[in-house]
């Protein structure tokens, strides 16, 4: 880093000895090329992300059915939203889904990452096998799980029957449908696991050796070395988990369409229904912005809590 800082920008090089050049100076040329290179990304961001976001923000203050021009309704969509029992139900379903699935996925991913970081036979096979579900399309995964969850002929209930348990009607029983979705979401822990696995490569071996010398058991070594050393990875996974859990769509849409009795009506599914089935684009946009606000608040809270639990490496630590 120190060496890199020593390289001074070209603009600060002495220029007196070089004859003045016509046209752009080096600084301007560099700036121009910089803008040229970033232009596609910036344009893409503006046209396909920021632009639609601003448009949806505008639409959230209108009544818009796609067939006729939007009509300005002020904050009506937002006030209707908070008085809408289905939205409240959807919000609670989404929060339950996130609160359960995010930590459980992370714990599972961490445990497996630790296991896959040890010297096991066929390690590459297991690493690939556990990561594989993450690269399969959500719709394909949901179709497979739909069959597995079938109360009559599904694999899960067939397995439970072998041990004398009469399995529930997973996807049609209000009590079980959300649990089934959460259970299925755990299957996609591969991405989180991979990030943990990468993080584990960076944990100095000496720390484990020191803990071992101090008499720490394997569990305590992981508790006092692995967990704090991976706290920044956990921080990243937590943020991504929160965002993903509030945006999950394909699985509930394919498996339950939000039913039975709205028990799996995650916000994204409710948003879709309003936008594309009831043609209430303004209302759907308001849902999207409330979801965005929730994500922002939760992310902010996690960021604020960072100093309390995230271990950041300083020069003194080296």
């Amino acid at each position, binding site marked *: 880093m120190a060496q890199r800082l020593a390289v001074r920008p070209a603009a600060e090089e002495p220029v007196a000895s070089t004859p003045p050049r016509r046209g752009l100076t080096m600084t301007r040329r560099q700036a121009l090329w910089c803008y040229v290179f970033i232009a596609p990304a910036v344009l893409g961001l503006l046209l396909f992300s920021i632009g639609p976001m601003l448009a949806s923000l505008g639409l959230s203050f209108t009544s818009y059915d*796609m067939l006729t021009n939007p009509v300005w309704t002020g904050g009506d969509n937002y006030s209707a939203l908070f008085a809408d029992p289905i939205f409240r139900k959807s919000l609670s379903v989404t929060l339950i889904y996130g609160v359960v699935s995010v930590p459980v996925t992370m714990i599972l991913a961490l445990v497996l990452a630790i296991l896959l970081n040890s010297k096991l036979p066929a390690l590459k096979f297991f690493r690939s096998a556990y990561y594989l579900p993450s690269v399969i399309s959500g719709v394909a995964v949901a179709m497979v799980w739909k069959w597995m969850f079938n*109360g009559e002929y599904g694999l899960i209930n067939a397995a439970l029957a072998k041990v004398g348990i009469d399995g529930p009607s997973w996807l049609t029983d209000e009590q079980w449908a959300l649990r089934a979705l959460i259970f299925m979401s755990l299957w996609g822990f591969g991405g989180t696991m991979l990030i943990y696995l990468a993080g584990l490569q960076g944990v100095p071996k000496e720390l484990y050796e020191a803990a071992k010398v101090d008499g720490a058991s394997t569990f305590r070594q992981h508790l006092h070395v692995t967990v704090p050393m991976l706290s920044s990875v956990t921080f990243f996974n937590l943020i991504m988990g929160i965002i993903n859990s509030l945006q999950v769509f394909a699985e509930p849409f394919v498996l339950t369409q939000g039913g039975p009795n709205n028990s799996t009506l995650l916000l994204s599914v409710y948003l879709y229904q309003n936008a594309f089935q009831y043609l209430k684009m303004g209302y759907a946009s308001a849902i999207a912005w409330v979801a965005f606000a929730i994500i922002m608040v939760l992310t902010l809270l996690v960021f604020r809590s960072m100093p309390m639990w995230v271990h950041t490496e300083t020069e003194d630590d080296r």
Partner: protein
Amino acid sequence: MSKNTVSRRILLGGLTAAGAAGLVGCSGNGSGGPAAAPAPTGTELVGKTNLEIYAWTNGPTIDANFRKRVALFNKEFTGKYTAKINFLPYDQYWQKVQLQYAAKKPFDIYYWDVQAYAHYKKNLVFNEQPVIDTTPMVDANAYPTKLYDPWKFDGKNLFCVPENIQSMAMFYNKSHFDAAGLDYPDATWTWDKVVETAPKLQKSTGSKVTRWGLDIGSLGIWWGIQSLSWAAGSSFVDKPLEPTKFQMTDPKVVESMRFVQDMMWSKHIAPRPDERAGVAQNNGGFASGAYSMIADGTWNISSFQQMKDKWAMAPLPKYEGNSVAPYWLGGWVIPRQSAALSAAQAFATWSATKFQPQMAKDHDWIPLQNAARESQDMLKGMPEGFEAAMKDLSNARIGDIYTANMQQIFNEVYGKNFEQLLNNKLTPEDAAQKMQDAATKLLG
């Protein structure tokens, strides 16, 4: 910073403004837009001659027949029009239709379903009555013109061009009845007789039912249950076109719900929702011989034709002494902004007139034209009982409800509560009350 240097703030600001302007331009939501085409007369050529037709996919047999139909149209109108048909999955179809309208570039012509009522309400489709008036479609001796009435949204004119008709009937597996030595269902059958017969057709291995005597089929959908309440002398709404009130708590409606629920739960002569899902996933239901009887839509006829077993159909059994089947019209919607207006009208009216005998031969849709529907070409290869079921059409009632929020009512109110009812999570009384309250709220 030098004056000549474009600041990042200015650059980003400019790009944002350009992006936003582009977005506004793309959204096509301006109040202007192209003027609506003049009301068609059927004689002058309006719009382009190459026609893009949109329909949702109905499986390989029906899709192939649609393509064949378009080829025949192109042959018939060689040198005048060229049509091409595009298929989309049903769940994407209506989104696409809406998006095309939003972009002010609607499809030239598209296939009707109840969602298109919203397009009429928003004044996006033409009054097609002047065109229809130039065809034999208005001849009451040649067409069942009375059945058009629910599609006359303004009480006088047709805003879509009807071309086919569908209804509901009882389908039964003749092989199962023969093996059990039972008489086939016919127009005299009542639902009580069905309830009595179904267990005699049921087969089990241990505690597991391997063949059900009955599947409720379309009785599991709101319009199926409504057909029972019609038979009992009531209805879900006071009128199907722009209803002013729901009548879900009417005792006759509640009883019809209880009847269906009981067949699945207290009597258990028909599979429960989870058992139905299992059958559907495992082997596909009636067509695979998993059910001996099913109350279902006539649009299934072409897929049932692939069955190995012998099968036939009968009019819907009587409930409370009556049988009232629902019917649906199939047809074409032509947007006011159709880019190929004359070609679209030609295709729609040709489909409803000259093409009808071929539709009868194809056995996919049921022709609207009486002569085609009752022709030997139609009856040949159709199951026994088809003719009797078609005769019941004179007594049939429209299986749709037309009002602005109907999709939300179907989904949030009917869908959710009927699901609960069929899963025995709600009593018929509670389901009726919930639906009455929620649907009335959405009606307002």
